[in-house]
């Protein structure tokens, strides 16, 4: 396998979170009762006229610009014809030869190196409905058309991706950018971001293009990475055994940990595209493009660079903090109001993210506010609480949304900095552990740490650590 390299291109579909559908005014909502978000247009009833949602166009241009694409001055919609019950019209409104955006790129970082992945095109289309297949060998399917007509962007990468890690990094960066510009939720579990992969392998260092397979049914970023790893292995084995990789569509089987052939769609790629006569062409003026460009927020890469220069963070920490706009906003709201932005970064990339993951939360749903974190850090500075106790306080703040001061009072967590009281405890510990004290005097440094630990234990962690160190040293 070492002698082979993979050639990977990703095709990503994202649902845009406009208020209404792409070509009709039905609400664009997830999780409604089946067939209640529909109207004659998205049901494909005869005689209706679809009209494009201006928000779809705005979002699509925004995404194109954020992905460094050229925005076509002239664009149009086409009908992609196929018969399947998830599409009541028997065609999908899509874009064929004149997509809205072309020739973009995004930069990914893998193992400390930056790679630029080309984006061939970004086009607008409508989503299809959902099929629920009857249970057991039932001979019917149930159709829910709530999703039919929901606006989608199809984002097609160049075959520039070489490893499964790069594929994952590409998806993470794409998700990050699309969330920053607020066009999609990008939730793979809810299907608002879906990814198919085209992949072939070739002897490393050559530019042969071998037959590729298309991999579907990957339901998480992790699944994409694992599926590509498995497919590379499979294709390499086929070539190594003197065989030939068949051009086909395969499905990732999560349980088996391998890709399996999908029954090939009969006459699959005969979509007979033609311009949709119901939708008029789209002419985008340079003014409109520049306005949308001006309105773009600071994007993740630029923000990460600024975090390193403005707050003195490492590239790694800046990358972690800026991957999500909500996280970067939280961090920045703290960092602007606290003397040590690096310390803030440690708390946010450390305890904060640990708890976000452990509690399985979205950052925007976290009760802890940036002001509360700053207040807690100031309590440490003042010596009211120790850094160790702060972790307990932080977790309580995170879960309850209460202020640090309140928690410290409620739980009696104020740091003990009273010399008299601490001296008494130090005396007790020293008396109770004559052997350890002797070890320390004989040069065992570790013995000292044990004694400090005993004082901490006796004070439930509330003793001022600097003071404990000093008092112990003086005593023994």
């Amino acid at each position, binding site marked *: 396998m070492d002698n082979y390299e993979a050639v990977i291109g990703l095709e990503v579909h994202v649902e845009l979170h*406009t*208020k*209404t559908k792409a070509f*009709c*005014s*039905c*609400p664009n909502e997830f999780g409604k*009762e*089946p*067939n*209640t*978000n*529909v*109207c*004659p247009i998205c*049901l494909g009833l005869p005689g209706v006229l679809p*009209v*494009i*949602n*201006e*928000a*779809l*166009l705005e979002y699509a241009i925004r995404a194109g610009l954020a992905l460094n694409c050229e925005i076509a001055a002239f664009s*149009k919609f086409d009908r992609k*014809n196929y*018969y*399947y*019950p998830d599409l009541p019209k028997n065609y999908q409104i899509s874009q064929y030869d*004149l997509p809205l955006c072309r020739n973009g790129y995004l930069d990914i970082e893998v193992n400390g190196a930056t790679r630029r992945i080309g984006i061939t095109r970004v086009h607008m289309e409508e989503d299809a409905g959902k099929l*629920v*297949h*009857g249970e057991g060998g*039932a*001979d*019917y*399917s*149930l*159709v*829910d*058309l709530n999703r039919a007509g929901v606006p989608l962007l199809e984002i097609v990468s160049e075959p520039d991706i070489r490893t499964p890690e790069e594929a994952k990094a590409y998806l993470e960066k794409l998700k990050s950018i699309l969330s920053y510009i607020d066009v999609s939720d990008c939730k793979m579990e809810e299907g608002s971001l879906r990814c198919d992969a085209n992949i072939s392998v070739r002897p490393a260092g050559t530019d042969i293009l071998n037959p590729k397979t298309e991999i579907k049914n990957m339901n998480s970023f992790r699944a994409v990475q694992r599926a590509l790893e498995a497919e590379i292995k499979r294709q390499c084995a086929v070539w190594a055994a003197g065989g030939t990789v068949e051009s086909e569509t395969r499905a990732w089987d999560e349980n088996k940990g391998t890709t399996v052939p999908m*029954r090939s769609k*009969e*006459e699959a790629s*005969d979509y*007979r595209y033609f*311009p949709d*006569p119901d939708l*008029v*062409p*789209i*002419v985008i003026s340079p003014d409109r493009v520049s306005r949308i460009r001006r309105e773009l927020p600071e994007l993740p890469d630029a923000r990460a660079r600024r975090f390193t220069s403005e707050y003195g963070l490492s590239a790694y920490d800046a990358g972690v903090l800026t991957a999500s706009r909500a996280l970067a906003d939280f961090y920045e709201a703290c960092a602007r109001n606290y003397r040590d932005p690096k310390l803030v970064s440690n708390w946010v990339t450390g305890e904060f993210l640990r708890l976000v993951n452990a509690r399985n939360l979205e950052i925007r749903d976290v009760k802890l506010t940036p002001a509360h974190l700053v207040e807690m850090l100031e309590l440490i500075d003042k010596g009211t609480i120790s850094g160790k106790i702060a972790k307990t306080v932080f977790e309580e703040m995170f879960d309850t949304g209460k202020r640090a001061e309140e928690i410290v009072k409620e739980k009696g967590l104020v740091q003990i900095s009273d010399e008299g009281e601490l001296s008494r405890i130090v005396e007790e510990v020293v008396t109770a552990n004559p052997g350890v004290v002797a070890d320390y005097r004989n040069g065992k440094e570790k013995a000292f740490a044990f004694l400090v630990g005993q004082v901490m234990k006796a004070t439930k962690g509330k003793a001022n650590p600097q003071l404990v160190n000093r008092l112990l040293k003086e005593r023994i």
Partner: protein
Amino acid sequence: MKLSKKEVEHVALLARLALSEEEKERFRAQLNSVLEYAEIINQLDTEKVAPTYHVLPIQNVERPDKEHETLPLEETLQNAPQRDGNYFRVPRII
């Protein structure tokens, strides 16, 4: 004739039409005459003519992103050949 029987069968399959042998021949002839007519149009020199993407001289018709009422469920499903609760029920196709 330009169009083969196999091509007629292919197009019929794409349109999910079941054609009898007699119909295949009949439609082959009709489709051929359409294609022949297109051939005639194809002879025109369109070198200096911009492609027509739409027959109307209109562009950029957009609507505001504002919700309108949806169709009541009973109306949505009233023409369904088969219904199952809130769903349309169709033959299974995978």
